[in-house]
């Protein structure tokens, strides 16, 4: 168990972030907090990818570093793309939150439900 913690702490950290994010998205009634949760959730996945590319004692895959082993750059490149997707999603989500606040005067899901019933 301790062995697993010391050798795989990076994976455990990303799974923790993953779980925390998912919990916030589902558990928090506040829409902005849900967006934050979604971001934490995604960061967990991003870090998972990034950490898989690491090779013990590997050098950065840049010409002229002259080492024998390099870390894998591909997961990092993929995650750059995924980060861009994540930023766009956050932007759209925040824009929607502004419209929801204009319409209902609240960001609390429970309050919004009450307003909807009153309509």
């Amino acid at each position, binding site marked *: 168990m301790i062995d697993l913690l010391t050798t795989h702490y990076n994976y455990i950290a990303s799974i923790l972030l*993953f779980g925390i994010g*998912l919990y916030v*998205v589902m558990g928090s009634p506040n*829409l902005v907090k*849900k967006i934050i949760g*979604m971001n934490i*959730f*995604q960061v967990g*996945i991003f870090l*998972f*990818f990034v950490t*898989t590319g690491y090779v013990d004692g590997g050098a950065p895959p840049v010409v002229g570093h002259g080492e024998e082993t390099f870390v894998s750059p*591909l*997961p990092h490149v*993929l995650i750059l*793309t*995924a980060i861009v*997707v994540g930023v*766009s*999603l956050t932007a*759209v*989500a925040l824009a*929607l*939150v502004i*419209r*929801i606040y*204009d*319409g*209902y005067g609240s960001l609390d899901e429970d309050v*919004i439900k009450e307003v*909807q019933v009153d309509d």
Partner: protein
Amino acid sequence: MTDALVLLVVVPIAASLFPVALGGRFERIGWFVAAAMGLVHLGLSATVAAQVLESGVISYAVGGFEPPFGIELVADGVSAPLLVLVSLSTLGVLAYARRAGPHSNAFYSELALLTAGISGVFATADVFNLYVFLEITGLATYALVASGRSPRAALASLKYLFVGTIGASLYLLGVGYLYIMTGTLNMADLTGAVASVGYTSPAILTSFGLIVTGLLVKVAVFPLHTWQPGAYAESPDTVSAYISALVSTAAAYALVRIIYAVYTTKFLDEISLAGDALVALASVSIVVGAVLAVMQSDLKRMLAYSSVSQFGLVVAAIGLANETALVGAVVHLVGHAVMKGGLFLTVGVFATGLGVRTVEDFAGLAAKAPISSAAFAVLAFSMVGIPPAVGFVGKWNIVVGAVEAGAWSVAAVVVVSTLLTLAYFGRVIERMYFTAPEPEADAVSTDGGNDAVEVSFGMRAVVVVSAVAAVVLGVLGSDLITVIQPALEVYF
């Protein structure tokens, strides 16, 4: 000559810039840009389809990097008809939107972006690239759903965004597991790589679970459908029609590609739980979706739950790992797009012209709008699965496939679902044709019809064309199958 394939994605992305960029100077430029994009897209997809008919499979290496290292785009007998379907749906929806709107330039930018995303999902042969296209599709859809001005639409869109993002992220995590185990992202390359790692490897099984769950969220199969009724019901009619026709279809196609091209039928044979779980989940979805549809009073919500049920059929056919059933699934994907898109537009015509939106309001509608009512009836009966319409061809093949595979329970569920489909469409059609309108309800609906828009010829024409297309596709069903079958045969 395979450039047409990549242009199918590039042209809509480039076109999406113009409505916003030129919007300040020309107020109504959006529709014209989108229409031009739609026509070019149709030309390109027809070229791709012609090439596929001639040479079977065509592929394109993006940026000149040879696969498996670069991103590869592929068109075969399954994706080529679906790409043509994208072009035709885009043009149909644009003909409808000319009068019905939304008229903002941003709307047409988002529509072009969605066209790009869906074309990309159909064309790509790279699992990470698929994630990117799924997210482009998602982002454009969230924005389109919110283009209805009400705060309800924004809330439905945000809910869709949360659920959709979690689905796509699960897919991405699954791709991560696949990449760690195999070191490749190209679908054709993954086929052998996954087999050599071993189907029983825990990491491969995890990746399968994550990827399939992620895609099922996007397909909107019960119980992962929670985003879908709100998104379809709250968005403008034009948007409901377009996304119901194509967005879930794209995700379902991705599911077919991933399960059969990456994991293959050998995986499904070895891990029988995988196929069984899919079939079980889908069967529940078929029945629950239909029962929920029967319970709805709002027509758009009813059509939305109907999609949950119909996509259950498609997923069940995918899980059966039987060739006939899989052909049926693809035919039903095409058919469902035509039928459901057409139905949403017909409901839009009724709502715009007569201000009716609920099943109650539909009483005596046939006398007031005979042509649209006839189109609705044809599309509804096609969805039930009455020959010769396309709904029958898809369902028939799925049932025959289920019987071939010895899955009698699926065959029974499909028959039950047909009856339930008849139940929810039957009560609407019965009201339209055989119930006299209540005078008070009539007065309310004319007051409620505060949309000053008149139903245009284009709007009616699209509705009629989709009804005719549903029947013609059914008659030509065997020709469609001869195009699709060779591309699916290779998986078995």
